[in-house]
């Protein structure tokens, strides 16, 4: 009897909830910032959130959008797709956000369905995952190019550098495996000897087992596509194992913290890092860089320009939209990235839209014309470790891969 009573109560509670609807005040608009603040990508999450905040401050300084001032709601995904879904639901249902900015690859893939269902655009500044090449587009966008472009840039650099032999050490994750496959093809096509292609699982205390074969072939360079935790350990152990060649690292290791956790001698003058990055010679990037320096006292971190552009694009699309909703924002988002008067600030875009002109936002990270999958063409930078910092070495504009 008691069991039946309890179960009846549970059913009644579920039914009662169906009739209750949420309500929130409509004063200005809120952008959800859903980033990994803890876990392997924690360092990136903070950079992204700070850059979005910087963008939002600029938008509000220019008088806000026509929907009112923009505020942000920040949440941590911890790098988990399940957590991202829980937080995204809450952001949309409770806080009424019109767009969610910042999820990483795995989270972004898991959010595709939710974005379309809840009619809330999701945008990522670093989700290069190739899965989005197929399922991205409507409601799902990014301000960074696909991982395939990263692989092509790495491949091009390894070929141009004139190495005779290269070994690949790749973390067993989508964001590292897909670009590595593209780079591998480029290396093989150029006739460079591929001494090893090893896929390793992260989270190990040591990677000596993987390094034994790599070091025995003594390649000219090692392409290391690893996360921050595993990458640092691999670098340390290879140095201890007597490796004296050069390194090409991928974006996860492009953070300044790498120099704090490693002896700089391991990296200085012989480690390079390949990263999707804006053309630093562009006036838009220079302006953004100066703004970041003024506000934070530091140079922009990796993906900061792409993150800043997410906030700008969302606000400009909202300015051009017919209503203050995610659906209206989505309808205009692609349109404000192509075919119109070129603008590079929110204030200029606002003015042009008010005058009835179509705009084409060219942001701090470069031209953002979005293709069918909601992805812009990428530009890449190879940086060199010099005196304990990453210094620009070679820039590949999007046209280099045509």
């Amino acid at each position: 009897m008691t069991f039946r009573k309890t179960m009846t109560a549970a059913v009644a509670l579920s039914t009662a909830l169906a009739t209750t609807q949420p309500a929130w005040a409509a004063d200005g608009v809120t952008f959800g910032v859903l980033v990994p603040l803890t876990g392997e990508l924690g360092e990136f999450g903070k950079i992204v959130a700070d850059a979005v905040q910087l963008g939002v401050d600029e938008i509000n300084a220019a008088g806000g959008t026509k929907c009112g001032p923009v505020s942000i709601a920040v949440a941590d995904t911890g790098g988990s797709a399940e957590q991202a879904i829980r937080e995204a639901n809450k952001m949309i249902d409770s806080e009424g956000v019109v767009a969610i900015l910042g999820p990483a690859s795995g989270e972004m893939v898991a959010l595709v369905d939710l974005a379309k269902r809840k009619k809330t655009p999701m945008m990522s500044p670093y989700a290069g995952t190739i899965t989005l090449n197929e399922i991205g587009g409507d409601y799902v966008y990014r301000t960074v190019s696909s991982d395939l472009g990263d692989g092509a840039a790495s491949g091009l650099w390894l070929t141009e550098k004139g190495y005779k032999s290269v070994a690949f050490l790749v973390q067993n994750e989508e964001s590292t495996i897909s670009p590595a496959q593209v780079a591998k093809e480029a290396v093989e096509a150029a006739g460079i000897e591929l001494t090893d292609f090893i896929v390793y699982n992260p989270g190990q205390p040591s990677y000596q087992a993987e390094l034994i074969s790599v070091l025995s072939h003594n390649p000219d360079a090692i392409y290391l596509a690893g996360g921050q935790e595993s990458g640092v350990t691999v670098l340390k152990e290879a140095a201890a194992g007597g490796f004296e060649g050069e390194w090409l690292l991928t974006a996860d290791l492009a953070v300044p913290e790498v120099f704090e956790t490693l002896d700089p001698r391991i990296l200085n003058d012989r480690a390079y890092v390949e990263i999707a990055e804006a053309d630093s010679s562009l006036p838009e990037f220079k302006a953004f860089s100066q703004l970041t320096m003024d506000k934070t006292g530091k140079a922009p971190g990796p993906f900061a320009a792409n993150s800043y552009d997410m906030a700008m694009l969302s606000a400009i699309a909202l300015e051009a939209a017919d209503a203050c909703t995610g659906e209206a924002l989505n309808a205009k988002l692609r349109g404000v990235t192509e075919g119109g008067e070129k603008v590079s600030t929110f204030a200029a875009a606002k003015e042009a839209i008010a005058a009835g002109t179509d705009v084409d936002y060219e942001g701090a990270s470069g031209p953002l014309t979005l293709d069918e999958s909601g992805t812009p063409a990428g530009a890449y930078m190879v940086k060199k470790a010099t005196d304990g910092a990453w210094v620009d070495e070679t820039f590949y504009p999007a046209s280099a891969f045509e």
Partner: protein
Amino acid sequence: MIYSLILTTLMFGAMFSVLTVSLNLQYARGGMINFGTVAYFAAGAYAYAIVTQEPPSGLDQYALGLNAPWWIGFIAAGIAAMVFAVITGWPTLRLRGEYLALTTFAFAEVFHSILLNERRIGNGSVGMANVERPDPAVLGLDDTLAYTAAACVLMLLTAWVFHRLLASPYGRLVDATHNDEIAAESVGKNTARVRLQIFVISAIPIGFAGALYAMITTLVAPALFTAEVTFFVWIALALGGERTILGAILGTMALVFFQEAVRMIPFETVRSAQIAASVEEVITGILFIIVLRWQPWDRLARKATT
């Protein structure tokens, strides 16, 4: 905000309750310590994804995608968990106590490792994305609400079936096997078979919950099925108190509610969100200590059943 909090707590709470209730049957009534719960959950989710996913194309590395309707995938999830329980249960159930705990834990880790490294099963670490799911909008229902209701129905159904099972003569046989195996055998009961039956029966709803989880997240990847899920379910069971189905459910709901309540506050700065992420674990730990010390849920559950 409260609406969203309750809905999320109910959705994930009810789904994980299926695991806790099943674990309750295995451990509290069947006397088997299963530290590999996540493996049966993952088996269900992967079976669902493989059965419903489109055949591989482009850069996909999985070998099989049957593109079947969701309900076939759902049934397949239950069967997969059942088959996996037979395969793992048959050789291990002779073990007792901590030996069984270690073996089941090892089985789960091996399974996780296979999913991670054998890319032909489910794309390895990449996982299978955009998993097929029934669209409640066809029936005019809100999506979150429909999946919350589905999770609640699965939980109630599992609780009802297990309740009936344990209230039947078969339930007394299960108790007899647990309480005094030699006595049960002396009256001609095959205790080894009963243990395997309980192990397999309790794995089936876990498989169904796995399928539901795949529908909710629309993604199956090894990173979602780590030992943390097993520990979560064990903590929930410890919180709610053993031996009662209601206790298991309340424990899980309470644990999910704690997590959600801490994260409920909207943060406008990165720093506050970072602090909240760290504080959440501390608060969960403190609450766990408090509950273990005073056992309010256990007391409540006992009061409810008397």
